[in-house]
């Protein structure tokens, strides 16, 4: 087994062994899935048509935004990155492996959701599983890229919580998980269009669920893919080995560039 594969396998096992990561990767999204399925399904039956993609995106957000960034900051603060640098672990591996493992954890949680939702809650299953997998992978990469970027730019674990919640909470409320995008007031719809989850839900609707609400799924896929690449690229560029996060190549404010594709999406869709 080569070093990257061993590192990946170790990181994946830690995601199950570490109680916080186990909570964020599995217990939190699956617990919320059961709760939302039972509660929201009876209050708003329309939610059951999107329960599979919505809770999949929720699982992605849990691991990528609430689990991964804190792990990266804690490792840097504990001097683990310095130890890695001395032993030849490249920065690319330090960032790419948590991104990939968080995607894999979210995929496993998603499999549970997608297979049980129809039986447990009469939720609508995807009509195109290949499309579902494609959208899932691109959306998970976009969110995990943002998670890595938050982990890289945060000066402390406290800042990580702040940055993560700044993305997580609006994504939950406005990003199409709880309410359809079409029901949002115009001002809120503009805000929603700078959130990756809005594009993820649109792409799921158009490419996986066969729903009319997916109006521009391929544009959404493109925006998510470019957003993910920019977020991950910026996290590599801004990465700091230093335990105090004092030395890096650029200013942390450069992280805002990761929202450029979503800004372009906002402009395109408002004109359209």
């Amino acid at each position, binding site marked *: 087994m080569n070093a990257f594969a061993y590192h990946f396998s170790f990181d994946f096992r*830690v995601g199950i062994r570490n109680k916080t990561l186990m909570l964020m990767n599995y217990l939190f999204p699956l617990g919320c899935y059961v709760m939302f399925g039972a509660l929201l399904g009876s209050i708003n039956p329309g939610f059951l048509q999107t329960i599979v993609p919505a809770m999949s995106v929720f699982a992605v957000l849990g691991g990528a935004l609430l689990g991964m960034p804190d792990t990266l900051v804690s490792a840097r603060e504990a001097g*683990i990155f*310095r*130890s890695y640098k*001395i032993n030849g672990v490249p920065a690319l591996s330090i960032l790419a492996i948590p991104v990939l493992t968080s995607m894999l954890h979210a995929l496993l949680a998603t499999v549970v959701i997608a297979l049980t939702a129809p039986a447990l809650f009469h939720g609508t299953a995807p009509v195109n599983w290949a499309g579902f997998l494609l959208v899932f992978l691109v959306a998970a990469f976009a969110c995990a890229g943002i998670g890595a970027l938050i982990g890289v730019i945060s000066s402390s674990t406290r800042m990580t919580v702040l940055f993560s919640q700044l993305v997580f909470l609006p994504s939950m409320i406005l990003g199409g998980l709880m309410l359809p995008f079409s029901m949002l007031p115009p001002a809120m719809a503009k805000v929603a269009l700078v959130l990756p989850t809005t594009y993820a839900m649109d792409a799921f609707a158009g490419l996986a669920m066969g729903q009319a609400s997916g109006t521009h799924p391929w544009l959404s896929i493109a925006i998510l893919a470019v957003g993910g690449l920019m977020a991950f690229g910026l996290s590599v560029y801004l990465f700091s080995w230093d335990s105090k996060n004092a030395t890096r190549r650029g200013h942390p404010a450069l992280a805002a560039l990761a929202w450029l594709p979503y800004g372009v999406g906002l402009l395109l869709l408002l004109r359209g």
Partner: protein
Amino acid sequence: MNDAIIQVHDLRKTYGSLVAVDGISFEVQRGEIFGLLGPNGAGKTSTLESLEGLRRPDGGALRIAGIDPSRQSRQLRALIGVQLQASGLPDSFRVDEAMRFFCAYHGVPPRDDLIDRVGLSDKRAAQYHQLSGGQQRRLALALAVAHKPPVVFLDEPTAGLDVASRAMLHDLMRELQAGGTTILLATHDMAEASEMATRVAILLRGKIAATGTPMELTATGAGLTKISVRTEGECLAKPGTDFPAVRQTQRQEDYFIYFSTDVGPTVSALIAYINAQADPLVDLRVERPTLEDRFLEITTKGAAR
């Protein structure tokens, strides 16, 4: 013959207006254990981290086996093993996983023998956070040498260790040295430096205040050598018994104690006098100033400037 594997020439490292390392130069010969001593803030860690490639020097030239640490990091990794002061491993790492992980990145087979060698055989499945401080340090040393690097940097390797763990680490360091490994040892422990180091450099405010073998350093200090003598009779109590180079005399129970600036002439004169008095010698002990005495002398002088 000069067989320097580590060459430091006019190294400078600053942090804003603070000059941490101020133009130091030294060489470490292949197979040496070189001790880097100094009070907190003297520049030891900055020097080590510059050599380890963790910090970029602001001036000077560094070479490890001809490699520039700040420019040739890939080649450097194979050449050096590093035990950081804070070990820096993920809490969830199991001992055997840590060995496999680092060996994988160094491209060498896992060294399970080293886990046994540092006394962690029964802790293979234990996670890092479950190990005691001493066990964590032993693991860190095993990981640092797993890829058989020719140069090893140890930063306070025995700080906080119990006697048995310390002895085990010292044995391992001697084994490494016997195998030709060069060790650069930063420590606060003067007894450790005295016992383990072939040569030492004492850093003070970013400069080298003294360098040499522990014996040379203690010999060049202003410290007095303590000579304790006991005879059967009382010949040394007679008035007018002056000996060369003696600065101070004391009596403690049956012993006469002389503090000398030059031990050779003092001891020779003492023995000649005792023999001349036909007073049988029972005990004679010579206690040279320790490295710690010399270190305190240098650092106190430096602080007073």
